[in-house]
């Protein structure tokens, strides 16, 4: 019918104009019916006339205006909880950056509710843009952030269960707001610190928890960001925006050193131990980055003073301080070989320092152990000799440690000597002092193979060649001062080193055949003090013969004679009839 008629309504008629009000009211009435329909409640806005749809003239255009005006006064939109209908102007659309990954709002709705249900499609909500539907303002959303932070244990931001993705999204939002809101954001207490507090940088300067990837000790009075939060890239960008900075390495080191400027009071030993270890680790790891300040006030790190009190590493290496100096309680009082050994009173660095040592950082050429040794004067080395006295004329003697080993752990003496003998150090000592030291050392009684203790100087290394020669004359049951070599030293390498050492000190080997025979003779005599044995007699005569031959062919007869004469008297065998 539309083409047939060219007539249109008369638009200037007062009645027609007034009819528009009735039409607008009926339209609103229809919408109020739609909001109770199960699907139309989310779609009715498609019927709303839009200015852009059609070239409305003034008459019909005014109908749009009337509809728009009357629509403001009624409640036509459902809240997200589906519990209430509210007017358009009371509701807010959320931007994408206010939503989480499931497109739910980052923060819960407030009261009165403003969020729209997801059943409203974006296209349908767009139809309400010209009818007063607004998006949530940045300032309104920031209010929600502030509200959440004030909720204490109910805060989403502060909850440990909140996902990383959630935090990323909130951080993105905060970074992207226009500058006019920067001040508000910077005063939010939204930075999580080590220790659980939440602060804004306005309260204190805040620093990142690591410097050059090394964790900063948390007890230096610095406000540090919780490292787990830093791992999140967006949150890190947010923290940058909030003026969190990375502290200087040298400043941190200074703070650590300052802590030890005065001696510690030790009420809580365990805690101090742990923190001191943390501090030392940090100093070690960053030493190569701050070489000018690579030192440690070692006095205050332990209860002993570095120069005068010896502190050793406490590892269990053989012939280390721990091995040698610890006290041993005898298990079985009957056993001869074991008895109570009092320890030597030395200090050891607490084992906790050495447990799981920090790995050597790139750019640092000292190991943890080396650095500790250098910084805190921890001893790795047990001296065999010690000096006493003035700078100019020091006197040398065997060290206390050496005396301790000699007295209480003589079985370890050889190993001890082998471990700590330094050719270069020995050479520095002048000849007279050296001879004195050697004499001292040679007097130390060490265990021989059969258990007897014998002065070191008079012992012999149990080298096969010598042993064979001796066996011609000496029974195995008879005593000969063969040195007892500990199992750990009984290998070719150690034995050859022992030989070198023995040569230096002049023990363990026969200086001449004559001496050797004399010694053999003496030992036979000692072992057979009261017995009469024909076999022995033959050996003795043989020995006499050998000795005589040596004398006869000796280059220096005088010396030879003196040697025989000064041999212990019991070498003269008296045949008893």
């Amino acid at each position, binding site marked *: *019918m*539309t083409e*047939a*008629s*060219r*007539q*249109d*309504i*008369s638009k200037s*008629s*007062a*009645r*027609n104009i*007034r*009819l528009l*009000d*009735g*039409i607008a*009211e*009926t*339209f609103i*009435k*229809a919408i109020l*019916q*739609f909001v109770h*329909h199960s*699907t*139309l409640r989310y*779609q*009715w806005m*498609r*019927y709303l*006339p839009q200015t852009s*749809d*059609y*070239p*409305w003239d003034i008459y*019909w255009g005014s109908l749009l205006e009337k509809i728009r005006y009357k629509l403001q006064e009624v409640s036509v939109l459902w809240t997200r909880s589906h519990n209430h209908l509210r007017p358009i102007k009371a509701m807010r659309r959320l931007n994408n950056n206010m939503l989480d990954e499931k497109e739910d709002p980052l923060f819960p709705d407030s009261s009165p509710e403003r969020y729209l249900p997801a059943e409203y499609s974006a296209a349908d909500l767009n139809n309400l843009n010209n009818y007063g539907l607004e998006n949530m303002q940045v300032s309104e959303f920031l209010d929600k952030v502030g509200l959440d932070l004030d909720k204490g244990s109910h805060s989403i931001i502060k909850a440990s269960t909140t996902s990383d993705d959630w935090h990323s999204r909130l951080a993105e939002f905060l970074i992207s707001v226009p500058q006019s809101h920067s001040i508000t954001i910077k005063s939010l207490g939204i930075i999580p610190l080590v220790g659980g507090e939440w602060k804004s940088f306005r309260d204190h300067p805040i620093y990142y928890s690591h410097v050059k990837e090394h964790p900063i000790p948390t007890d230096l009075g610095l406000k540090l960001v919780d490292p787990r939060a830093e791992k999140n890239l967006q949150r890190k960008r947010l923290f940058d925006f909030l003026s969190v900075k990375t502290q200087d390495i040298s400043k941190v080191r200074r703070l650590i050193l300052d802590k030890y400027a005065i001696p510690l009071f030790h009420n809580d030993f365990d805690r101090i131990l742990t923190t001191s270890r943390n501090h030392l680790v940090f100093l070690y790891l960053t030493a190569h980055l701050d070489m000018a300040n690579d030192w440690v006030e070692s006095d205050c790190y332990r209860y002993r003073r570095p120069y005068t009190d010896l502190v050793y590493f406490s590892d269990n290496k053989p012939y280390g301080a721990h091995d040698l100096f610890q006290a041993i309680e005898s298990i079985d009082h009957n056993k001869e070989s074991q008895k109570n050994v009092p320890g030597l009173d030395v200090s050891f660095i607490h084992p906790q320092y050495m447990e799981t040592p920090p790995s050597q950082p790139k750019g640092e050429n000292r190991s943890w152990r080396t650095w500790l040794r250098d910084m805190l004067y921890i001893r790795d080395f047990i001296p065999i000799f010690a000096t006493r006295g003035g700078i100019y004329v020091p006197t040398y003697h065997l060290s206390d440690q050496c005396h301790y080993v000699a007295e209480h752990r003589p079985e370890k003496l050889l190993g001890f000597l082998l471990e700590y003998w330094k050719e270069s150090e020995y050479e520095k000592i002048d000849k007279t002092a050296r001879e004195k030291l050697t004499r001292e050392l040679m007097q130390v009684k060490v265990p021989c193979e059969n258990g007897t203790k014998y002065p070191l100087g008079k012992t012999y290394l149990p080298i096969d060649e010598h042993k064979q020669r001796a066996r011609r004359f000496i029974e195995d049951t008879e005593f000969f001062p063969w040195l007892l070599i500990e199992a750990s030293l009984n290998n070719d390498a150690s034995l050859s080193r022992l030989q070198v050492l023995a040569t230096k000190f002049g023990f363990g080997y026969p200086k001449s055949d004559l001496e050797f025979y004399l010694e053999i003779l003496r030992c036979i005599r000692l072992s057979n003090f009261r017995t009469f044995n024909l076999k022995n007699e033959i050996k003795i005569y043989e020995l006499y013969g050998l000795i005589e031959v040596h004398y006869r062919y000796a280059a220096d007869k005088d010396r030879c004679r003196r040697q025989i004469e000064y041999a212990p008297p019991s070498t003269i065998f008296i045949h008893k009839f």
Partner: protein
Amino acid sequence: MLNPDKTKFFSLSQNLYNSSARFVFELLQNADDNSYSRAKASSTDPYVSFRVYNRRIVVETNEDGFNYENLVAICNIDKSSKSGAQGYIGEKGIGFKSVFMVAWKALIQSGDFSFYFQHKKGDTGMGMITPIWHDAENDLMPNHVTRVTLFLHDSISADNMKTTLRQFQEIESTFLLFMKNLKKVYVTMYDENDEQRTFTTYSMSRQSSNLHVVDLKTEILKNGALEEYSKHYHLTRGIANDLSMSENRKYTKDEISRKAYQMAEVVLAFPLDAKSIPIIQPQDLFAFLPIRKIGFSVELHTELLFPYSANKCSC
């Protein structure tokens, strides 16, 4: 017999030939304006049926039937017994009489009444308001049916005929939306040999699950095949208040004192698909009749005023 004023007839016939050819809608409106209390009481849908033959058109409804007051009204130019200021189309007293644009004789049969009016071109116009009794013995009527048979002018131009036929074809089920009573419209078209060509039913019913929603159905039977179309609308009725008087019509003293003109009905029909999803397309504006598409996606019907043009037209 009644004594009409002669001068009025001329202006009447003048007016007749000046208005547009929308007489099918006027027939519909007339049909809707009747009362259907008997049909409603027996739960029958009020209907109107058009049978369009070569030279005649037969209109039937199941209205309550003519009575004396109806007769007086139909014979009078200015007065009307129908519902009054509201719901009156074809102001200026034309209404039913516009059928004489296409017909020379209108035979009305209803209950015990059986009479006709006659007006040929050049006639004074008296025939339009002078009923002549028609003997109905051969022409038996079914019960409770009112029938109007329009005998078309021989001289009706091909163009006019085309226009008329087109008006029937352009009936849409949406016309039912704004009817007060009618629920069904039947249109049967016959060819020149009076054989049935198409039979179309337009019907409207309310959904039981949602009383705001009506289903409109169009069923077309053609060449033995049946086509069906459905449309669905959510209907909301409202009232416009505080209206001033219409310039285009005269009100009775009674209507003026009751201030009946102050209110007008507004009906909005929102198109939905079968799943109750909104259908968004420009829809018609109706003021009792469809006027034009105005860009709303809602069908709108209310009493809007037409300018009454005084153009001359020779018909």
